[in-house]
Each structure stands twice: as structure tokens, then as C-alpha cells.
């Protein structure tokens, strides 16, 4: 699967958050999106996920949605799934329900078999959640909430999973655990796009680095990448 951005510009009123961006992301790649806060990383991911309106073209496998189709729903059905900044969980629903809602991407019926399969995959990746499945998501710690958000994203069966600031507000030990999990996903061949303000972990994980500064996107060449890792 291939995501193509052609001359994409994202505006919020008179402010240009992302300017004339051209980029190609493959489902066999892990892409780190780095850059200072407020420079357009989130806008880039939101545009790809259909959460931000833009000028230009974003194609998945050469196709774009029709005008009447909600772009965010279309992107998810095409296998492009975002784990948004601050997770966007449903705080007064259980962890189990939060995760199972990810299945809406490909089905409207939850069979017992599908439910068991999704929960087994989740606990395989995040065994810490086993005792929390019936708790409200809003009662969990930041790290646990991030796990739920990733599990919900994975329940959508994505070809490319995009994570916006996954380590934001988390303790260092939790961040390491999180990146271990992302590394497992990478080993399994999952396409990843990780936007981070503090780039070290993301650069280590990924094989392509895209820097976003003042709304301008550039793919960092290999020597620059190696300089970025201490």
C-alpha cells in the first residue's frame, strides 16, 4: 500500500500549518516525523487521516475519496489509522469497549470470535491491560491510556499505523516500553508513521526520517539521520 501526498497545504484560518508538501509513505516503511512543536507534524498526520482539511491531493494506492465520502472514514477503511495526540479515548467507556470500537473500521457486527481474537491480540501485546479491561478508560494512567489507544488503532487492522506524539507526558520507563512494543509491530512488518518532538526513539525505530519545520516537509538524508542519534 502507498500513501502519496501531492502539493498538500493545510490552513487554519489565515495560518498555514503545512505548506506544499510532497511525500510518499509505503506500508512497508517506518517513518519518523520530527520537528519542533507547532511546526506542522500533527497537521501532516491529521491531513493523511482525514481529520484536517487541506488543499492538494492525498492518495492511497492512487485513489482519493469522492466528495460525498467522509475522508476520515475512507482513510480508516483503506488501512490508514491514526493514534491521535492525547489519545482521544472514550473516558467513560470500559477499556474493552474502547479497544473493540476499533473493529468498526471493517465490520458493523461484533461476533464472539472476533471479540475474543481482538482481546487476545491486545493482551499479547499489552499484558498490563488484563486487569483493567472492565475499568473506565478515563481512570487509567497516561501510559496505560496510550496502550489502549494503540490497541484500538491495531483493532482497526491498519496497513499503516500513525502515532502522533505517543510519548507525550509519559515517564521515560513507560516510553521505552512503548517503543519496545512499536519495535515488535515493526518486526511484524507493520507500516508505522511516528511523529515526535523528541526524536531519538522515533529515529532509532524508523528507517525513514521526515523533518517538518515551519510547515515545510523534507526527507532527511541518511547522514543527517545518524547525526541525530546520540
Amino acid at each position, binding site marked *: 500500500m502507498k500513501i502519496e501526498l501531492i502539493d498538500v497545504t493545510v490552513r487554519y484560518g489565515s495560518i498555514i500549518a503545512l505548506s506544499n508538501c510532497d511525500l510518499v509513505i509505503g506500508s512497508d516503511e517506518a517513518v519518523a516525523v520530527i520537528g519542533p512543536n507547532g511546526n506542522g507534524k500533527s497537521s501532516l498526520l491529521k491531513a493523511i487521516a482525514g481529520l484536517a482539511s487541506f488543499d492538494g491531493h492525498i492518495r492511497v494506492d492512487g485513489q482519493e475519496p469522492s466528495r460525498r465520502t467522509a475522508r476520515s472514514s475512507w482513510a480508516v477503511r483503506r488501512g490508514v489509522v491514526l*493514534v491521535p495526540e492525547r489519545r482521544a479515548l472514550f473516558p467513560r*467507556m470500559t477499556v474493552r469497549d474502547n479497544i473493540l*470500537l476499533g473493529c468498526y*473500521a471493517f465490520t458493523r457486527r461484533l461476533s464472539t470470535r472476533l471479540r475474543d481474537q481482538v482481546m487476545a491480540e491486545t493482551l499479547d501485546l499489552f499484558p498490563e491491560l488484563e486487569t483493567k479491561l472492565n475499568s473506565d478508560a478515563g481512570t487509567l494512567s497516561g501510559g496505560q491510556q496510550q496502550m489502549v489507544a494503540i490497541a484500538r488503532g491495531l483493532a482497526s487492522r491498519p496497513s499503516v499505523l500513525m502515532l502522533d506524539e505517543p510519548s507525550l507526558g509519559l515517564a521515560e520507563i513507560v516510553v521505552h516500553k512503548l517503543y519496545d512494543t512499536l519495535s515488535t509491530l515493526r518486526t511484524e512488518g507493520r507500516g508505522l508513521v511516528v511523529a515526535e518532538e523528541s526524536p531519538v526513539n522515533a529515529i532509532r525505530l524508523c528507517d525513514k526520517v521526515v523533518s517538518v519545520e515551519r510547515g515545510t516537509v523534507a526527507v532527511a538524508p541518511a547522514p543527517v539521520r545518524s547525526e541525530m542519534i546520540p
Partner: protein
Amino acid sequence: MLNDLFAGIVSGCMYGVFGACICVLFRVSKVVNIAIGDLAAFATLAVAWFITNHGLNVWVGILIVLVAFALFSYAYDTLVTRPIAARSSKNFTAVMFFFTLALSLLVEGLGQLLFGSEVHGVPALWSGANFKIGSLIVERPAILLIAVTVVATAAMGAFLRYTLIGRVITACGQNETGVRVVGVNPNRIRLVCFIGSVLAGAMFGILVSPLLGFTYSSGLSLGTLGLVAAAFARLVNPIRAVVVGILIGVAEALIGGYVTSSYQVVMVFGVLTVVILARPKILGTLGSFD
């Protein structure tokens, strides 16, 4: 006493169902539809008008009105709710409350213009002699109304709790970004719930009309009592709204039977005010789940 109690349960079903409709819509979209009662009254008057003035079969009349209401709800959501949601996310609930209040007044005025001030009712969908159980006289439309209320409430509860779409409806009211990243189009879910709640309200109005009879102005007080039932259910729990609605109906009937029938509604609101003042926590935080 038994007859009063039964009459209270019947009118309470009406308040409860209106309350449940308000809850489901608020749960998904944060819209409080105060016009639900007036829309139901208008639907009833329209069906009665088709039957009386054009000699249509009752089911044909109901079908025409429900289709017209579905189209109207679609247009209202597209032309009013969606643009407001896009513009005023912070004050959306307050703004929409006034818009649905305006809709309520508009529908009431149209009802008076088109159908006059007389009391109208749709013929009973289940007609025949009343049942007598001791001193209790039970009309067939009342049994039908209670049965449909119980079945519809149980079905709605199971739907919201056990199906994926039911979970989506709950999730829509909690985090819009969250539902969009799992592929839900929240506008579509809100539209479906709006149409569904308006049609359910209209259908229950038609069901209850052989018992209560409607005028153009019946809707607002019914909708307001529905809103009270919904408020006791924190605007999110439709099952509780139905139960509270029935309790309100029973209280109203007992006040009418044993205290005063002239100030029945005033007394009901008085009792509810005392209950809320005595136990403010009963309302909890509107919009919060248990």
C-alpha cells in the same frame, strides 16, 4: 385507585419514551431536542387529518407522515444542525436548545394553522371491547402502548449495550476525534439518531392519541415532561428516562385523582422541584454516565 395508577402508567410511557428519545440524541450529539413533543403531536394531528379529510387507511396515513417526518428530519439536520455544529462547537448544546425550542414553537403554530384548535386522535391500532379485571378497566390501545414501550425500551437497551453500533452511539458523545479515527462519520450517526428519535416520538404520539387526544398545543408540555424524565437520567440513560417518565405519569395521575385535577401539571412540576431541591445529587452531572 387502580384505574388512576394505570392511567398514570399509560401517560408515563409517553413521557418516558420522549425522555428516552431526548437521551439517545443527546448521548450521540449533545443536542437536547425539546421539540420532540410538538413533532409527535403534529404527526398525530396530520395522520388524523389524512383519515378524516381524505378517507385514507390509518396505516397509509401513518406511512405518509413518517416518510414526511424522515425527510424533514434529514433536511433539518443538514440545513440547521450540521452548520451550527461546524461553527459553534463550544456553545453547541445551548445554541441547539434554542433552535429546537424555535422548531417547537414553529411546529405548534403550523399545527394550529393546519389542523385548528380541536382535539384529534388517530383511531386505535388495536380496537375492540375494553378488558375488565375486577374494578380495573383496561383499554386495548393502553395495553398496546405499554407493550410497545416495554419491548422498545428493552430492545434499545440491548442495542446500546451489546452491539458495535450501540457502542459507537455512546462513543460519539464522548470524543468526536476518537470516533473519527476508528472510521465513524459522526454526522451520519447523529443524523440517523435524529431521524430515529423523531420517528419514534411520532409513532408513540400516534399510539397514545386514542387514549389522550392531542391538540396543536399538547406537544410542548409532553416534551417538557419528557425532558424532565431525561434530566433525571442525566440525559444519557434512556432506560432510566423511561422508568422516571412512568413515575412522573403515576405521580401526575395520583395528584389528579386525589388532590386536584385543575392544577395537575403545576403540582407535578412542584413535586419535581421539591425532589430536586431535597436531593440535588439525583440529577448528577448532566451528560455524565454512571
